[in-house]
Structure formats: structure tokens, C-alpha cells
């Protein structure tokens, strides 16, 4: 009895739909306005249905798409590696120009660097086979990075400027007073320029350069910007310097070695 009722309901629904479709057909055949309206509606409906079916089809072809993307990704990675190799070669060509006479420049790449200690260090991918020697400086276009402390065949170990054990000679402005630049030990980009004689005046914002008084670094490499100062023991100034170098992003560096280092050290 219940099954008969369901069948009857289904039959009624089918008849209802058939009658409505027939009426709609009559309406569209007899009125241009309604014909356009129904056509627009049916196009919208078909668009939705086709869009949904396309989405389903795409879902089931995702595996093939993924495979294709992996292949493309692999190819792009190979191209990237080739481009990076060419870029490195180009860096070698451009940085080995004689921008610092009397110094030998060797490009290198940082393979490891520590930044969260009081005695930070870095390791570069050049060793004594590449002509790297101890007591060479490491610089970038943004300033000093460190000093090489030990050299192996293909790598070199260097003390970072963010290390209390190293200091470099620096000066304020083109003709300002010189002092010793050391890391403040607190901030990643702040150093202190110590022992600057009181008679030398400067303005906050003046650029701090390497002085060239040490044997390690050529002169006039910009290091940072001078900030506040305080007088130490009534004899010298201690000036805060905000460094240009961002140690968090350093990757490509140049090793600078004074050609006359051994000769001058002999004195």
C-alpha cells in the first residue's frame, strides 16, 4: 500500500514535470520575450552544470596534472641551477677587478654562519687551494663581515664581526677621527666605535668607513652610520654605529687579502 503511494507520487511528479515542460515549450514558441528569457535561463543553467562537470573532471585528472607539474618543476630547478652557476661565474669576473689595489679579492659563498652567540663565526666555501690565507678580511658591498682565522683545503673558518674577539680600525667621515670598531654584543646591527679622540668632531648620521690603518681591510669600505656618543674617562669618545651589513642575509662575500701583509708583518 505504501509502495503504491510512493509510485503514485513519482508518477504525479513525472506528469507534473512533463506538463510544465510542455507549457514552457508552448510559452517560448509563442512569445519572443519569454523565448529569450528561457534561453538565457537555460544557458545559465547549462553553464553551471558544465562548470560543475568540468570541476569534477579536473579533480579526477589531478594525478596527471601533478605529474606534469613535478616534471616542470624539475626542469625549472635545473634551469635555476644553471643560472645560479652562471651568476656565480659573473660575480667572479666582476669582483676580481682591481677595485682595491694591493689587495687580492676572492669571491666566496657563506656555507655556515652563526648569529645568536657572543662569539659568532662563519665558514666560507674557499680554502687554501683557492688562495685563501689566514688573516684575510671578508667584506661585502655593505661592509665588513669578518676575519679569516683558519683555512682548510676547500673551506675557511672566520670570526664574524659579531664576535667580541675581533675589532677593526674605522674612521668617521672622509677625514674624521679613527677608532676601533667592535660589536656591541647586544644588537645584530650595532657596533661601537671606541677610542675616538675628543678633538675630532662628527655629526650623527655621518658614515663610518674602514680606515685602512689595519692590514686586513682596504680603506673606505662603508660600514655604517654614526649615532650617539659618550665620553669615556674624559679622554675619548665612544660612538654608536648602526651597521649597513645585515648578517641575517649575508651569502655572497669577498675575501680580501693584503698582498703586502707578510712583508709589513715582518717589521
Amino acid at each position, binding site marked *: 500500500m505504501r509502495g503504491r503511494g510512493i509510485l503514485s507520487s513519482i*508518477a*504525479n511528479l513525472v*506528469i*507534473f514535470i512533463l*506538463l*510544465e515542460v*510542455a*507549457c*514552457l*515549450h*508552448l*510559452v517560448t*514558441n*509563442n*512569445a519572443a*520575450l*519569454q523565448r*529569450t*528569457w528561457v534561453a*538565457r535561463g537555460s544557458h545559465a543553467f547549462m553553464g553551471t552544470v558544465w562548470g560543475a562537470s568540468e570541476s569534477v573532471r579536473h579533480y579526477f585528472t589531478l594525478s596527471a596534472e601533478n605529474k606534469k607539474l613535478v616534471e616542470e618543476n624539475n626542469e625549472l630547478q635545473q634551469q635555476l641551477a644553471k643560472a645560479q652557476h652562471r651568476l656565480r661565474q659573473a660575480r667572479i669576473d666582476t669582483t676580481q677587478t682591481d677595485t682595491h689595489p694591493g689587495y687580492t679579492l676572492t669571491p666566496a659563498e657563506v656555507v655556515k654562519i652563526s648569529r645568536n652567540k657572543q662569539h659568532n663565526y662563519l665558514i666560507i666555501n674557499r680554502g687554501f687551494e683557492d688562495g685563501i690565507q689566514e688573516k684575510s678580511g671578508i667584506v661585502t658591498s655593505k661592509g665588513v663581515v669578518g676575519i679569516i682565522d683558519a683555512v682548510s683545503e676547500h673551506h675557511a673558518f672566520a670570526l664574524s664581526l659579531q664576535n667580541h674577539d675581533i675589532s677593526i680600525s674605522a674612521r668617521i667621515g672622509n677625514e674624521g677621527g679613527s677608532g676601533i670598531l667592535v660589536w656591541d654584543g647586544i644588537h645584530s646591527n650595532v657596533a661601537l666605535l671606541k677610542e675616538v679622540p675628543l678633538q675630532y668632531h662628527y655629526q650623527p648620521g655621518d658614515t663610518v668607513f674602514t680606515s685602512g690603518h689595519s692590514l686586513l681591510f682596504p680603506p673606505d669600505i662603508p660600514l655604517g652610520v654614526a649615532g650617539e656618543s659618550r665620553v669615556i674617562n674624559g679622554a675619548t669618545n665612544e660612538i654608536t654605529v648602526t651597521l649597513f651589513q645585515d648578517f641575517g642575509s649575508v651569502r655572497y662575500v669577498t675575501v680580501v687579502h693584503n698582498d703586502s701583509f707578510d712583508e709589513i708583518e715582518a717589521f
Partner: protein
Amino acid sequence: MKRGDFWIAYVLLLVAQLLLSNYFHVTPYIFLTILPVMVLCIPIRVGTTGAMLIAALTGLTVDYLSEGVLGLNALALIPVAYFRNGIIGLVFGRELFARKEDFSVERCGFGKVAMALFLSTLLFLVIYIWADGAGTRPLWFNGLRLAASLGASFVVSLLTLGVLAPDPRK
């Protein structure tokens, strides 16, 4: 009411609807119809399929013999026939189907009959006005037309109840 009397009344009201469709053009906001009440009052024993076929025939007759788009009245009237049992069951309860009795004001009360009439007229007019506008008329126009037509048609339909659903005790 005898079976024959109902169908005579039905045909007479169909003629009345034809007159209304052809000569009652007071304003574009009012579309006067008594077709929903005619379908609603088709005896329950006829069944949904029979009611839908009668509604289709009635709608097509009006469409063919009056000014308008052929199929439009039928398009709106068939759903009234399809949902007729649902409306009756909702408003009057399922007992009418069990007893195979037709509703009347005297038996079911004016409020319930008016509610059933209102729902069937509303269903008819929503479809009719929506299809007649064919997406070219603004919503406010359709809304206003629906409200005005519903009010007018509801009142006229109430007047026909005495003919289509008379007191069974008389």
C-alpha cells in the same frame, strides 16, 4: 453538491474567467484570476493527476481564447493542481482525504478556507507574474503587481466559493 453541478459551475466560471481576461484591463498592476480557486475546489476524489490534467486543459483554454501568451496560465495553474493536496492537507488536515470529503466554509470554517485560497492564489500569481515579466520588469513592479493582483483575485475568488464549494448539508 452533485458531480454534474460542480462541473457545470466549473465551466461557467471558466467562461467568467475568459470575460475577465478579455475585458478587465483596469490597470497593469492588477491581474484578476479565479483559476486557482477553481482548481483548488476540484473534488478530492479526482486525484492529483486528474487535477493537473484538468488544470492544464483549463489554463490552455483561457490562454487560447483570451489575449495573452499561449501556455502561460497553464504553466502557472498546473503547480496549483500539483500542490493542491499538500495545501489542503496543510490547512484542513489529512482527514478530508481519509473520508474523501471536499472542503467547504461551513464544514472547515472560513479562516481555513480563506487560507487555502490565499496560498493557491499566491502560488499561481507568483509563477504567472514571474513568467509574464520574463526578467524584463523590475522587482518592485512585480511585487506591487503581485500584491494588488493577490488582493483583488482573493476577494473575487471568495465570492465564487459559494458556487464551487457550497454547504454540503443544503
